[in-house]
């Protein structure tokens, strides 16, 4: 039996301007899931439900084997949560926060925390109010990483970070990959970070799950073709997500790319000039446009 880091089933939730219907989302233990979506897609709502802070109108949520929100206290001992809109106490130092977190979680590793301080170039004695945005984000992450939680939930961990800070954060996240008992869910609109680190990709748009697949299969299934058509022909082929045509040239995007898709293009009378893999960002845009 496969064990799940989290398992959400049949989730319904309804707000005045937002609804989620029958959402099913699960992450096998030891994997990294990237949650992609524009603002308002439902990423934060999903994360709040996983943290037990929002109770869905219907559906089951299990996190690390605990029922949410009923068993959230036990679950939260093993979840590490950080988000870009989370703040620490301005008037206190980072060291104060480290001691506070340590008093709550016995497994907080002071040695690892010291190590992270150095690598993130933070000073324990500095008050939070003197920190830049990047330093604040790194400080929150330090507090979470140093207790090695079984499940890391990171809401936009790299948003607003400069490239160097982002690289530091990403390399610490990569460290988590070494342990096959630890799982990560992170949301981002920086699809580049997600493309790199995720095993699973979940696409959310307007409360709907557009796709949930392992990254390799997913990236492979999308492709962009540049084709030349016989004069006067209208480009049309089944399996295309989008077709843009100008004169005899057409750009065709498909999410059903396999060995015979290029052949089908040829059979339809098109000359394939180029075939490109698509980045997650391009796929994201194409996917959202199609579903709307």
């Amino acid at each position, binding site marked *: 039996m496969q064990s799940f880091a989290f398992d959400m089933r049949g989730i319904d939730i309804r707000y005045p301007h937002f609804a989620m219907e029958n959402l099913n989302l699960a992450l096998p233990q*030891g*994997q*990294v899931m990237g949650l992609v979506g524009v603002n308002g897609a439902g990423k934060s709502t999903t994360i709040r439900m996983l943290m037990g802070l929002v109770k869905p109108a219907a559906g089951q949520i299990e996190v690390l084997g605990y029922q949410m929100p009923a068993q959230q206290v036990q679950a939260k001992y093993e979840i590490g949560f950080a988000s870009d809109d989370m703040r620490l106490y301005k008037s206190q130092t980072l060291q104060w926060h480290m001691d506070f977190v340590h008093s709550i979680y016995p497994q907080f590793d002071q040695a690892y925390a010291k190590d992270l301080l150095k690598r993130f170039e933070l000073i324990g004695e500095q008050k939070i109010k003197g920190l830049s945005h990047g330093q604040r984000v790194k400080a929150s992450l330090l507090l979470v990483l140093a207790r090695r939680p079984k499940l890391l939930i990171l809401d936009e961990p790299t948003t607003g970070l400069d490239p160097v800070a982002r690289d530091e954060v*990403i*390399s610490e996240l*990569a*460290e*988590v*990959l*070494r*342990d*096959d008992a630890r799982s990560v869910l992170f949301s981002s609109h920086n699809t*580049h970070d997600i*493309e*790199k*680190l*995720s*095993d699973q990709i979940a696409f959310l748009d307007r409360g709907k799950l557009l796709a949930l697949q*392992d*990254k*390799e299969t997913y*990236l*492979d299934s999308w492709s962009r073709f540049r084709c030349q058509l016989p004069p006067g022909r209208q480009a049309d082929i089944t399996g295309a997500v989008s077709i843009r045509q100008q004169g005899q040239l057409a750009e065709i995007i498909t999410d059903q790319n396999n060995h015979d898709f290029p052949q089908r293009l040829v059979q339809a009378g098109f000359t394939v000039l180029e075939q*490109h*893999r698509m980045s997650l960002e391009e796929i994201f845009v194409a996917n959202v446009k199609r579903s709307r």
Partner: protein
Amino acid sequence: MTYGLFLSATDKKPMYLQIVEQITSKVLLGDWPADMALPSIRELAAATQVSVITVKRAYAELEQAGVIVTQAGRGSFVSPHPDLQQQLKQQELAQLLQAAVALARQLQLTDAELAAQLEQQLQQSSAQSSAG
């Protein structure tokens, strides 16, 4: 420690393919000798900051190509096959020829024309080596 792999997100090739090619060339060059233990999938993923599933796929392709062998519970090793380097070069040649054929089709050359061009290349090459 990235195990000497240099992966780039701006490379047009997908990450898994970059790993496959770079490990293959390490083996071809003999930098990674036969029977050498490869880093575990998770280890390599963490070191190169690439997802586990990507490294998994790269190892699967490498195994299929005969570059590495995986033993359940022990991990992956560079293939001990004595002709491995020869075999890999053969594969590379086959791929290049395949690409040449595809290009010729795009140029709408006949098979005879392609064969003639290949013949010409062969003659030039032997002429150069006898001259040098």
